[in-house]
Structures are given as C-alpha cells and as structure tokens.
C-alpha cells in the first residue's frame, strides 16, 4: 500500500516536471546571450537567399570573430504573429527582419534606434524613410519595394501602338487600353482586390499623377487631407476604372497574390501595378512574357500640373531589438547584411531591387533599367505611410466602392477618422 502511494507520488512529480520542462523549453531559442546573435526572418530559408546570408555572415565574422550568428527562418504567414508573441514575452531575437511602413512603425517600442551606428551607409543605401518614425531610423533597408506600372509591349504592338511610347496622360491611357481591348480582348488592368491589396497598389501607383507634389509630400509627412479633391479623385478613379470595365472581371474575388499577376502574365490584361522586388515583379513577368516585352511606365498624368514619379520605399530591412545585450554588435550584423557585396548577390539571385544604388543592373533587361533610373526621382509610396489598421479598413472600403455599397465621400470620411485615431 505504502509502496504504490509512493509510486504515484513519483509519477505525479515526474509528470509535473515534464509539464514544466516542455513549457519552458521554447525559451532556449531566444537570444541575447554573450557571443551569440539570433536573427529572425522569413528569407534565410529560401535557397535563393542562401549565398546572400553566407556573404553577410562572412563579412560579420571578419569584424566579430567570436560571435556566432544563428538565422531562424519563420514562415512569412505567421511571422508577425510569432514576433508579436516574442515581443510580448520580451524574449525575442536580437536582430529581426521587417517590412517597411506600418509593420515596423507599430513595433518601434521594442527596437533600438540605429542612427548612431549606420550613419556611414545613409548615402549608399536608398529607402530609409520606410523604417523611420519620428525622425529616428529603426532598420537598415535590404531591398527596395515599389509599385511600377508594368505593361505588356507585345499587346501594344498587336494593337498598333508604339510600345516604347506609353501614354503620358489619363485620356490617352484609356484610349490606348480601349484600342488594345478591341484588338486583343485583353483588359486594361489586372486587378486583384480580394485581400484589399489592389487599392494599396492603385493608390500608390497612380497618386503621383493625381496629387500635386505639395500634397504628395504633405501626405508622407503625416499631414493627410483625406477630403481634398485630389485624394477623392484617387478613390473615384478607382471606382471609375472598374465601372468602365478596365479591370478584369471579379476584382473583389481575385487575389493580388498571385491570381492578378497571373492575369497579366498570361496576356489577359495589358497593365498591372506590380512590385519591384521578391514577387509580382520584372523577373516573374519576364519568365512568361520575355524580358523584352515587359515595359515599365510611370503614372499617366490624371490631374494637370502633376509630376508622376516612381513610388518606392525600403522593402525589407533588418532591425535590432531593445533587449539585445550589445546593440553595437547587433548593429554591425545589420551593416553586414546591407553591405554592397551581400546585396549584389541578393539582387542577382533573389530577383530584388537592392537598396544599394551603386549595383550595376544593366544586364537584367529594360524594365529593371527603367526602374533603377527612376529611383533617383522617386518618392515614398502613399499607402506605406498608413497604419495597418487604416490599410485594413481601406481594403474593405475599396471592395465596397467596387460593389457600389459605399460612396467615395463616405469612404474617405471613414478613412480620415481611422487615420487620425492613429
């Protein structure tokens, strides 16, 4: 009797210990210990990024031979969920990858300002704005992300248009589209707004042709007047384009990633507002349409007196967590990850426009050359300046605009409220 009572105590204690053990085990992956840096991202698992990571690691090892670096690749769909949990626990990685804009700005409380460490890189790299909040820089850009308007040159040719001379103003643009639709049946825009992303690309892709330069800069600076005629025009244009049948059918049930891009790649639409890096970009399109047939244009002038420019920002960048032991060492790792050598490899293998503007891109086809030549005069994309909450709301309102269940006035009113609330 005594014996089995004793045994059951042993069993209970054992189970309790196992329970505690498994609950606390996951902490071991968090970094901050001396001599080791833990990096979280969603890139290092990609085969195409392997040599980039190798190059950066080698560069860092030269500066800090005693420090080991561990890259932990997280699945992108779960990335910010996992990161949020780690931040909540105060036990996240030392260095982490962020998308520029809302994702990093929402989380600067847990990051170290990098201005004192990366001063030397400020000139060489482009795209800092997307990682800046209240004048402080929180991450160094690796790639640039932006929204060029891609067009299919072979469709232009079939319609008897000059593929090297895309339309400069909106009326001409619509006329060209109609000519292409008549000749080939292809729609004007490949549009995917299932996730509410179509409106983000549309806003950023065309706004430089709608808003005056002053209003554009004010928007980026945080002085956003949602009810101005210019901003309203962007949203009424969004609706107008769909109502005129310029979009592919069912834009609200077409996913931007990657159904809308597939529409463009398969020649069913003549234009798409795409991306510069990673996906939905020149490299993807060139695989289907041939690099010679992929053209890039800036926004047509919708409102007279505007100067269209390429909208782009820092795409992804590495940041340093507050709880890391030595921010200087971690910042040095960030600098290695953005060195010219490493970025050159990243551009060549992953198909991204790297943040380093000194890299030679002439061999990658006309689209890349056009994009890189426009970076100099480019401006930050409008949607990147918005909080993720406002973007989410804008996604839903844009779907309502397309289905006709909300008016432009009501939509911009709601957006203004959400934007002002933070």
């Amino acid at each position: 009797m005594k014996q089995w009572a004793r045994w059951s105590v042993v069993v209970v204690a054992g189970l309790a210990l196992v329970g505690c053990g498994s609950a606390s085990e996951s902490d071991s992956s968090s970094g901050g210990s001396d001599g080791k840096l833990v990096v979280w991202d969603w890139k290092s698992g990609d085969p195409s990024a392997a040599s980039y990571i190798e190059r950066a690691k080698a560069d860092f090892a030269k500066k800090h031979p005693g420090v080991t670096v561990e890259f932990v690749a997280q699945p992108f769909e779960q990335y910010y969920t996992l990161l949020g949990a780690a931040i909540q626990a105060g036990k996240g990685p030392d260095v982490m990858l962020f998308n520029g804009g809302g994702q990093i700005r929402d989380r600067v409380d847990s990051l170290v300002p990098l201005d004192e460490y990366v001063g030397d890189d400020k000139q060489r790299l482009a795209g800092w704005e997307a990682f800046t909040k209240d004048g402080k820089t929180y991450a160094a850009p690796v790639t640039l992300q932006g929204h060029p308007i891609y067009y299919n040159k072979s469709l232009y040719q079939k319609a008897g248009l000059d593929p090297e001379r895309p339309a400069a103003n909106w009326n001409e643009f619509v006329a060209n589209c109609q000519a292409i639709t008549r000749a080939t049946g292809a729609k004007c825009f490949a549009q995917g707004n299932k996730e509410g992303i179509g409106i983000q690309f549309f806003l950023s892709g065309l706004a430089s042709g709608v808003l005056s330069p002053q209003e554009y800069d004010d928007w980026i600076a945080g002085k956003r007047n949602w009810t101005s005629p210019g901003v309203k025009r962007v949203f009424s244009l969004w609706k107008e384009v769909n109502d005129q049948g310029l979009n592919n059918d069912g834009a609200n049930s077409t996913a931007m990633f990657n159904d809308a891009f597939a529409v463009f790649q398969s020649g069913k639409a003549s234009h798409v507002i795409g991306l510069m890096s990673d996906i939905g970009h020149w490299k993807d399109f060139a695989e289907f349409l041939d690099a010679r047939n992929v053209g890039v244009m800036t926004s047509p002038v919708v409102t007279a007196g505007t100067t269209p420019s390429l909208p782009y920002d820092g795409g992804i960048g590495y940041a340093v967590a507050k709880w890391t032991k030595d921010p200087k060492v971690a910042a040095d790792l960030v600098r290695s990850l953005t060195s010219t050598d490493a970025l050159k490899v990243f551009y060549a293998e992953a198909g991204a426009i790297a943040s380093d503007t000194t890299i030679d891109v002439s061999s990658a086809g006309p689209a890349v050359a056009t994009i890189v030549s426009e970076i100099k005069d480019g401006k930050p994309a409008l949607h990147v300046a918005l909080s993720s909450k406002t973007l989410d709301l804008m996604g839903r309102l844009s779907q309502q605009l397309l289905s006709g269940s909300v008016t432009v006035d009501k939509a911009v009113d709601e957006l203004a409220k959400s934007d002002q609330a933070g």
Partner: protein
Amino acid sequence: MSLRSSSPPARPADAAGADGPPTGHRGARRAAAARSRRPSGGRRTERLAPYVLVAPAVLIIVVLRLWPLLLGVNFSFTGDGERNGTTVGLDNYRDLLEDPLFRGALRNVGLLVLLLPIAVAIPGLLATFIYLRVPGHRFFRGVYFFPAVLSPVIVGAIFNLLLAFDGPLNAVLGGIGIGPVDWLGDPRVAMVTVVAVHIWATFGMALVVFLAGFATLDGALLDAARVDGASLAQTIRHVIIPGLSRTIQFVFVTTMIGMLTSMFGLLYIMTSGGPEGSTYLPEYYIWIQQGQMNRPALASAASTVLFLIMLVVGLLQLSLLRRSGRTE
C-alpha cells in the same frame, strides 16, 4: 466519507462474507484485525491515495488549461501599444462592441446556427438513402466520406479554382444562360458559399455517425411500416427520425462545434475575411488582431467573448442532451 467506505480492503472482506457464509465470520474478523494492526500513518496514506491518483489529471488541467485561461482573461483588461501593460478596465470590450467587424463576426456565428439544421439534414438524408439501399449505395458511401480526409487548405484551394469569377462553375452557369455569380467576391453570398464548402468537406463524418445509428435501428419496425403501406416520407418522419433521435442530437452537437471552431483554414484560404469583411468569424478576427494589427490584448478580449459563447452553446447542448436522456 464515501471514499473511505468504498476503499479497496473493505471489499474483499464483504465479498467473502457474501460468497461463503461458513467462512464469513472468520474473514470479517481477519480484516478487522488487519485494520487494527495497521499503523495510523498507513490509513492516512490510504485516505490520500485517491487524491494523489487524480492529481496528474487535475494538475494538467489546472496548469495547462485553467491557469492560461485566467491569464488570458486578465490580459484582456490591459491595453495595447502605448498602454501596454497598464490596466484599462473594460476598454477592450468596449472597442469590440464598437467594431463593426467584430459585430459582423458575431452575426456570422448566428448565421452558422441558422444553417445548422441544413448541415445536419444533408448527411442524415444521404445516410437514409444509403441505408435504404438505393442503387450504387456502396459506391456513394465511399465517395461521400472522401472529402472528410482532405485538409481545409486543400479543399479551399480546390474551391478557389472552381468558384473563381472566370472559373468552371460560372462557365457552366453561363452555358445554361445564368449570369456569372461572384461566389467569393459578393458580400451577400460569400459567407454562404464558404459554409456550403465547409458542409461539403465535413458531412462525411456525420454520415458515418448516422450510418452507425441506423445499425441500431429495429428492422422489424421498418418492415412493419412497409407492410402498412407507408410512403418514404412517412417512413422517415414516423420511424427513422424517432428511432435515431439520440444520433441526431449527437450530430447536432458535433456539427455545431465543428462549425464554430474549425472554419479558420477555409476562411483563410478562400476569402481572408472578405469581401468587405463579410466572412469574419470570431476566430479569424482574433488572429487578425493579434498577428496583423499587433493588438494582443484586444485579441484576448475577443477570445474571452468567444469562450463565453462556446460555454453557453456547450451548456445549452448538454442540458438538451441530458433532458432527452431522461425522457428515454
């Protein structure tokens, strides 16, 4: 008290007494002697033993379930972002009530409850046909179960293709002269579409449960109904449904739980909560707030509300089951 009286050593003595009267007294005396000889420490161990034995289960439930639950509820009374860690009272719950998205999610829960009878009737009816041996019933039995083994992600991807605006279903509809329906892009139909796909993907399990229930049905009753000249509808209404009432209730409960807790995968793949936020369910809302909007405390408040809803639904169903158990 009751634990003590049913403690193991008392039983063999009683049993011996019942089995053999001649040895009964001796047995009882021996047991009594053994009891008096045992030191008092042993009796205490004996008394504690049941508690020690249930302790692992209780500990696991308390440490890994109840404690995190309490932490979560507690967390829902704190703020997000700048107010991280400070107590904000009921602010998160007020935010929830004011958020049209969350209200929409709750409305969709109501819609699920309304669609529940259909989700139960479909497998019930099909199982009836299989039981009544319609031609090809063996084939149908296998085919109906097949979708139940597919993961929601695969089912979602398949139906994304089928239901696309320029997809095959709309092509067929166009062929017979009905205009295309934007199955996943029209806020009025999207939620119903997703629920329909969910039912398609999961009714196989309920069908199997129904078939198991039919196995217990008295064949003589069916024969009697047939002899009396009952039509199919009459047979179903007066013989099959009363005979299967327990099975039907069980399927109701499991289908409801399935709908409330396992539609995330389908929603994520098929609509991402859209269009216009019309296909949000509380689960999806929680995920978005925590992962995308960086508002974990608000997400915990939403989780608490979802927990309360599940608790009410669960208790209602339990009481329903208990009441029907009593009437039988």
